[in-house]
């Protein structure tokens, strides 16, 4: 992991990054509220604490690139530029939602943004990402498929099979492992005999690195480098070291870690540290932050209003979209 605290950054770009992270944070804080109010239901997995990963990573992707994410994907969807209103409407189960209310929090989709879910089976997105990349390779397109997954997924057979396939066939997949140290209540060292995730890439002859996932600039730089390798023709595994500040889901009593551990990590949080850094460099004033917060608050209010104005799909349409072509 390289320390790049002193890397130069343009003010406008820095504020964009900060805004993107704050947007995710506030969006999800709003989600918890709405969950308590039973407006959002089902599983809700918060990304709070990990915002630098998605925001940093998306900087390196163009509109033609593809994203495959997990059930903890609000941040990725927002950072990818999907309209917060459509995301919120999805969580409300409305027809105006990005998945027509069929998917909910765990299954955000937007093909226009080449955002392929929202996959809730741990490890299940990796083969699909390999396939999207294979389609690009076979059609001679110079695209990247960015595949996000947690460190818990590394123990799944699909991780192994997909990395081997991608390496063997030189598929342009950027494997982005968000290592937040826990898979539900299982600490990394209780699930992996080798706890350096990036080190596993050697077994497939895949280039790899680990980066501080709390440092949005470091993530951006690492992902840019990695994406270049991928575009040049083959997979890359990047481990993003981060931490989940909130419970795994809304049902998790968090018996498996101490409050003090969480607090220690919060001090390293991606927004608080980035804000401090920008202030220290004179790139951020109180007024900037206020403006960002105000803008984000307005966006979120609009998103909620959009969702609330949504229309539930008629029950008569229950069976639509099971098949793309109507069956006999």
């Amino acid at each position, binding site marked *: 992991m390289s320390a790049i605290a002193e890397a130069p950054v343009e003010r406008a770009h820095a504020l964009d990054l900060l805004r993107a992270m704050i947007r995710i944070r506030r969006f999800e804080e709003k989600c918890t509220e709405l969950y308590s109010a039973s407006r959002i*239901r*089902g*599983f809700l997995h918060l990304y709070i604490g990990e915002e630098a990963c998605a925001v940093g990573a998306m900087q390196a992707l163009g509109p033609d690139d593809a994203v495959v994410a997990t059930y903890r994907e609000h941040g990725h969807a927002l950072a990818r530029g999907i309209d917060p209103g459509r995301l919120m409407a*999805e969580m409300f*189960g*409305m027809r105006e939602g990005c*998945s027509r*209310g*069929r*998917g*909910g929090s*765990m*299954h955000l989709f937007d093909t226009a943004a080449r955002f392929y879910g929202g*996959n*809730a*089976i*741990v*490890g*299940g997105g990796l083969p699909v990402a390999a396939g999207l990349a294979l389609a690009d390779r076979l059609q001679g397109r110079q695209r990247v498929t960015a595949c996000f997954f947690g460190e*818990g*997924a590394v*123990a*799944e*057979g699909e991780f192994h099979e997909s990395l081997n396939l991608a390496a063997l066939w030189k598929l342009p997949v950027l494997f982005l492992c968000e290592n937040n140290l826990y*898979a*539900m*209540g*299982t*600490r990394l060292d*209780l*699930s*992996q005999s080798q706890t350096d995730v990036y080190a596993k890439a050697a077994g497939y002859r895949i280039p790899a690195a680990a980066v501080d996932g709390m440092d949005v600039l470091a993530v951006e730089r690492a992902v840019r480098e990695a994406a270049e390798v991928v575009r040049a023709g083959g997979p890359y595994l990047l481990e993003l070291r981060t931490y989940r500040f909130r419970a795994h889901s809304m*049902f*998790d*009593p968090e*018996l*498996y870690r101490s409050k003090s551990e969480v607090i220690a990590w919060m001090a390293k949080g991606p927004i608080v540290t980035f804000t401090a850094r920008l202030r220290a460099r004179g790139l951020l004033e109180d007024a900037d932050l206020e403006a960002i917060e105000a803008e984000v608050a307005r966006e979120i209010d609009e998103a909620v209003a959009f969702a609330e104005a949504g229309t*539930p*799909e008629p*029950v008569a349409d*229950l*069976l639509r979209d*099971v098949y793309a072509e109507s069956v006999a």
Partner: protein
Amino acid sequence: MSPATVKTSYREALREAIREAMQADPRVFLMGEDVGRYGGSYAVSKGLLEEFGPDRIRDTPLSESAFVGAGIGAAMGGMRPIVEIMTVNFSLLALDQIMNNAATVHHMSGGQVDVPLVIRMATGAGRQLAAQHSHSLEGWYAHIPGLRIVTPATVEDARGMLPTALACPDPVLMFENALLYNLEGELRAGAGAVDIDRAAVRRGGDALTLITYGGSLGKSLTAADLLARDGIDAEVIDLRSLRPLDDATIMQSVRRTRRALVVDEGWRSGSLSAEVSARIMEQAFYDLDAPVARVCGAEVPVPYARHLEEAALPQSEGIAAAARDLVAERV
């Protein structure tokens, strides 16, 4: 004098069954994702890690195929493993081990190798968890020879099926409908093992037979109450074991009521309800006053939106309506 009872939840009953088995037999251990430090994703195993330690309450990595296979191997090696697959949705990753090893090895070794393994998993929809987290596949698993499939639907069965399953030399899959964990009931003090191959008549009645299991039992009993208000007296059978199926109990009831409605949360086509209907066709055709009917899960990957999910699953009103139609039907 009726024996004393204690108020218990389905979850506690399961936990007590696990605890008792572990205390009684050092060969019993529990493994699965988050059964230990997390306390079990449905809190079934909460506290057991502290009581029995990490060797016997084993948190596994996310490796469904490996830890189910390891359960099979450990059973072959003389242990009595309880493997928890967090939910049936993830069991697909272990299906090769379940069908190709657990279900076959006794036979293909010519009877030499036993697999005294219990696999527990949560099943069912109803919590807006959408298409990848809402499967009800217990009836589908019942297709596989070599396995036993049980579906505790009461606190008593949650308490009593596990010891019997552990005593059985064959692999037993136990499906716990996730909506039942909070179910409360009165349990006889000292309640223990119950059989795992007979169906139970949960409500007597003459007008028709509702045949169901697992998460749909409660809904069917509620439907029976609704029907009772209309003067329709429904019998309700809880299958309890989906493999083997207890044909005798089913046919005895259907021959008397002459009408049967099968309620099954699984997707309709190829669900267990079809097998039940086919068996009634084969064994009680001439006793029927009307064709066997089914109320099943809609043939759709379960949608997230609440009203759509509700419409996709059997509900008491729908069951009662189908029952009324069935009773109204005249040959």
